[in-house]
């Protein structure tokens, strides 16, 4: 989903729910969760799948994570295959709002200038490679400002 549209939607939903229950947001990483919390404040209720002490590449979502995504209004994740467990989690949750194409599906890598995008065919013979570009864009302070904007 286009990031500006998703952020506009987030704003509209936040306004509409200003006096209603907080928007339920599930973020894959604590960095994203904190970003949403900073933006949404008391209008969002944020939960995070991957604890900050865990390697985000190797998370085994728990039943409680599936239930949180099932109830979520917005699902925020990196994309670029950083969270390979994200697709199975979304399938298990079966929440059409937050699946790809849904109004509550927000991939933060959209619109970010990516580094190390492979220009030729990639192969695992090169070791740990990311086929769509470096997915750790959220570590760069400039990109965090971009995501928040």
């Amino acid at each position, binding site marked *: 989903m286009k990031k500006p549209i998703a952020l506009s939607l987030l704003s509209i939903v936040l306004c509409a729910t200003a006096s209603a229950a907080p928007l339920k947001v599930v973020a894959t990483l604590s960095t994203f969760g904190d970003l949403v919390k900073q933006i949404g404040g008391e209008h969002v209720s944020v939960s995070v799948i991957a*604890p900050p*002490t*865990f*390697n985000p*590449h*190797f998370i085994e*979502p*728990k*039943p*409680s994570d*599936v*239930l949180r995504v*099932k109830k979520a209004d917005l699902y925020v994740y990196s*994309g*670029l*295959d950083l969270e*390979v*467990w994200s*697709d*199975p*989690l979304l*399938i*298990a949750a*079966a929440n*059409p709002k937050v*699946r*790809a*194409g849904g109004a509550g599906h927000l*991939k933060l*890598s*959209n*619109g970010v*200038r*990516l580094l190390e*995008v492979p220009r030729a065919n990639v192969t*695992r013979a090169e070791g*740990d490679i990311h086929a*769509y*570009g470096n997915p750790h864009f959220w570590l760069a302070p400039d990109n965090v400002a971009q995501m928040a904007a």
Partner: protein
Amino acid sequence: MFLCIALSGRASAQDNQLDTLSDQIKTLTQSVEQLRSALNRQQQRIESLEKENAHLKDTLPEPSPAAPAPTTNSASSKSLNPDIGVVIDMVGLLSNSKEDEEGSDKASIRELEITIGHDIDPFTRFDSTLALSDFEDGVEIEEAYVTLLKMPWDLSARVGRIKPLIGKVNALHRDQLDTVDEPLVIQRYLGVEGLSRTGVEVARFLPQFNDAFTQQLTLGILEGGIGEDGSLFGDVRRHPTAYAHLKNFFEISPNTSIEIGNTFMTGSAGENDRNAVQAFGLDLTAEHHFDAIRRLKSQSEFYLQDRDDAVLNENAFGYYSLLDYRLNQRFGIGARYDNVERIAFAGKDKAVSTYITFYQSEFARLRIQYQNIDFAEGGKDNRLYLQGTFAIGVHKHAIK
């Protein structure tokens, strides 16, 4: 006179020095001239290229906005192709057995698994697992089902050939197991690879009263029958099997969890014994993560049969207990104890297994497992397994 000779010699030496210096100065002057000449040529070349570049910029069209990085959700035709993954399971086995049965004292491709899956439309998704083996002719459909994503009342459903969500291990694929082989209670009661049948399964999360406690109820009905060499049910396909599983998940902390599952199954023992068999299952799993890598898991499953057909042991009981410890990024160790009463024999199958797993990468794994087994029908065996599991392509296991 000597003074004159000395003075004249000294003057001569000074003349030589002057000549040498003069020559050096000439050489340096020539070098500087050459460098200056080269610099002038390079400067002219730079000016020429700058003019050329400026001309090209004037004649080129405006660049289009940078296309977004290709993603799994892009609209390109490639993203409409299904996700395909291949997992190869190679097993070498040394044992005391003299029978030339599957795998004894030889290496084999125990299973080549091909997974194919993709969204059909916004409402449904298709997933399948096809299996080939050194021991089987043809292709086996291990799983082929459609997941219904937009169900009422917060339900989710799978329709097709499935590995039903009963217990813990039955729903797993071989590459997901902590051991080389399935626990003996699964092999003896449900089949060598567990139970996989065609049917319908519906699941729902129950109302949550506490954020730390999650419950999920699964109900299903399958065509009758049982897995290869399984004994729980008979082979009559038109006598269906029904099951229910209640998962209770306790999140003690972000690093610690306990799961308790209850299973009930009912099915046919044969042509004239419809609903003659019930089975009750209990699964217990506790996990603790010490850090991002190190993890300790304890898992047990217990199954009790209640049969109305004519068998030796109407209330056969079997279980296993497993302890698995991931040491670091590369190694894991563990042990499993099996104890299974058979319906056709008075004794029990008992086994102790220990193993070491080497994780070459997230796509390649080697495991060595020793197993000492006492058979219910008599006899013992000592088995040494060496397993290699390798994956290519897209391979994302469904969450169980």
